[in-house]
């Protein structure tokens, strides 16, 4: 009997604490466990008894990378529970804020966290020594994303300007349009980002996935839409819990999500791209085809190119929003507390983020449920590793470990969010 163990005790370049354990018995994969040991955080518990107005600021604290996603899912849920519609320039400002988070998060992951895997460098510092311009472009794009979040959200990390009903203060058209020149320059950087990433070497690896994303009739969905999949799912977000279940699995502190009828599914940039490609701008679709990335894309390693295309989209969308921006008459609409149940589901950089709240007559939170994207992808990541290791079993342990980590980073996992990180360990028998 020949047992090999591939083990990463603490995965680097992912958010939060987790590890991976792969057991190989006689050249066949016997077990794969994505272990998440980030301690549970009990956010859903301590939201109970708080005012509905506090949810955006409390839930933003779940993540330093995607606080906007938490704020957006929570405000949409509260507004739905209380029958409030936020539209016009306030809606556009929310989309601009979210574009900032997509740009910031995607630029960081593509350039500084994932590219080193493809080019054989252990980290961004070593990459920067050989490809300084690549890293500089990444930092420039990230800074632009941060500056958008800073302007609209009032602060780069854990923004403070978001409230149920809108914003505390709306930026002036002049402030917003000051971003214009930089966004125009960023458009070129993002196009270069697409061409650069499309030229990276990709492992041959395709799987049959069920992709799940929001779809909106008029736009590439970010804040609103119906939940759809490539296998016929098409539901209002209120039906999320009727169709999806969270399961406790012993080796992880995160709950794993499944589609009740079918099992594992895939959320995030690749899901959005495959389901909503037709809603990207013609120039972006043309560029995608030029670099050979017509949908459907079923190789998760190519998600790095899709993140780059989405960065380009977010830059172009932000440009559109700032050109049409006029200061709203009031920065928020009034919201009256009352009894209700509300659902919010928005496209965080890593995929759909679902919130549900039940409110009492005084607008206090009776019950809260939060399902972040990484816990939804967890089972799919394990499936990928299983099939990937099976094909790559002849590789020496150090090479195999490297590629397993690269495969995990295809999902840009945010483990702090999902716990509620990563050590990798391959065992050969």
């Amino acid at each position, binding site marked *: 009997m020949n047992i090999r163990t591939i083990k990463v005790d603490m995965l680097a370049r992912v958010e939060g*604490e987790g590890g991976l354990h792969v057991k190989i018995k006689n050249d066949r994969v016997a077990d794969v466990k994505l272990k998440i040991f980030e301690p549970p955080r009990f956010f859903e518990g301590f939201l109970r008894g708080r005012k509905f107005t506090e949810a955006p600021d409390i839930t933003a604290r779940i993540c330093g990378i995607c606080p906007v996603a938490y704020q957006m899912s929570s405000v949409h849920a509260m507004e739905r529970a209380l029958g409030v519609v936020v539209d016009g320039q306030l809606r556009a400002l929310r989309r601009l804020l979210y574009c900032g988070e997509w740009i910031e998060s995607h630029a960081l992951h593509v350039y500084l966290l994932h590219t080193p895997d493809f080019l054989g460098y252990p980290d961004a510092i*070593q990459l*920067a020594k050989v490809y300084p311009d690549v890293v500089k472009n990444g930092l420039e794009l990230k*800074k632009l994303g941060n500056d958008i979040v800073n302007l609209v959200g009032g602060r780069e990390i854990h923004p403070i300007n978001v409230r149920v009903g809108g914003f505390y203060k709306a930026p002036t058209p002049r402030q917003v349009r000051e971003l214009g020149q930089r966004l125009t320059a960023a458009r070129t950087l993002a196009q270069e980002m697409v061409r650069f990433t499309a030229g990276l070497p990709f492992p041959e690896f395709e799987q049959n996935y069920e992709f799940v994303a929001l779809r909106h009739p008029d736009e590439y969905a970010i804040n609103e839409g119906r939940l759809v999949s490539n296998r016929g799912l098409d539901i209002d977000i209120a039906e999320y819990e009727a169709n999806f279940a969270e399961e406790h699995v012993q080796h992880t502190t995160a709950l794993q999500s499944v589609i009740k009828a079918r099992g594992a599914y895939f959320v995030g940039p690749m899901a959005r791209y495959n389901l909503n490609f037709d809603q990207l701008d013609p120039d972006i679709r043309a560029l995608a085809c030029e670099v050979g990335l017509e949908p459907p894309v079923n190789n998760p390693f190519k998600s790095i190119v899709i993140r780059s295309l989405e960065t380009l989209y977010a830059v172009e969308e932000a440009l559109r929003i700032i050109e049409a921006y006029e200061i709203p008459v009031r920065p928020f609409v009034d919201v009256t507390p009352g009894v209700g149940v509300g659902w919010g589901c928005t496209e965080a950089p890593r995929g759909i983020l679902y919130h549900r709240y039940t409110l009492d007559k005084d607008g206090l939170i009776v019950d809260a449920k939060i399902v972040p994207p990484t816990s939804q992808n967890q089972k799919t990541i394990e499936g990928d590793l299983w099939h990937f290791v099976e094909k790559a079993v002849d590789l020496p342990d150090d090479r195999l470990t490297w590629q397993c980590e690269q495969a995990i980073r295809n999902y840009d996992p945010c483990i702090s969010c999902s716990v509620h990180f990563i050590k990798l360990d391959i065992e050969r028998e």
Partner: protein
Amino acid sequence: MTPLPLIIIGIGNDWRGDDAAGLLAARALRKLNLPNVTITEHGGDGASLMQTWAGAAVVILIDAVSAGGNPGTIYRIDANHETTAPDSFSTSSHLLGVGEAVELARALGQLPPRLVIFGIEGRDFAVNAALSPAVAANLPVLVERIVQEILNGTNDRLSL
């Protein structure tokens, strides 16, 4: 932008025990009203840190470290001439840490002309922990060493 002559950046988190040391040292330095010195506090995200020091001629970073020494031990790193050990500083798996920011800036040729890092060995970085007695006791020593660094460094600064 006019180049800032000298910027002191205190790095840390008030709610994580000894990690607050960099911030506390910056606040103590601010009270001394040193002329022509900009003092700022920072959460430690590397990419943002590189922007914070951009344009400055002389940069002093203050951060709590975990380098295996006795709590309160003070370290001085001349980053223009020595590499940092990225793992010693407050790190995050997803954001760039302080040491990574310094090394990334070096790789990109973007280090400030003069960058000195003062570290103080922490012991307890738990949420809501109090400052360790050994760290609290050595904070005034750290502040005094930074003041001396600025005074001694004045000639260096003029020569830049």
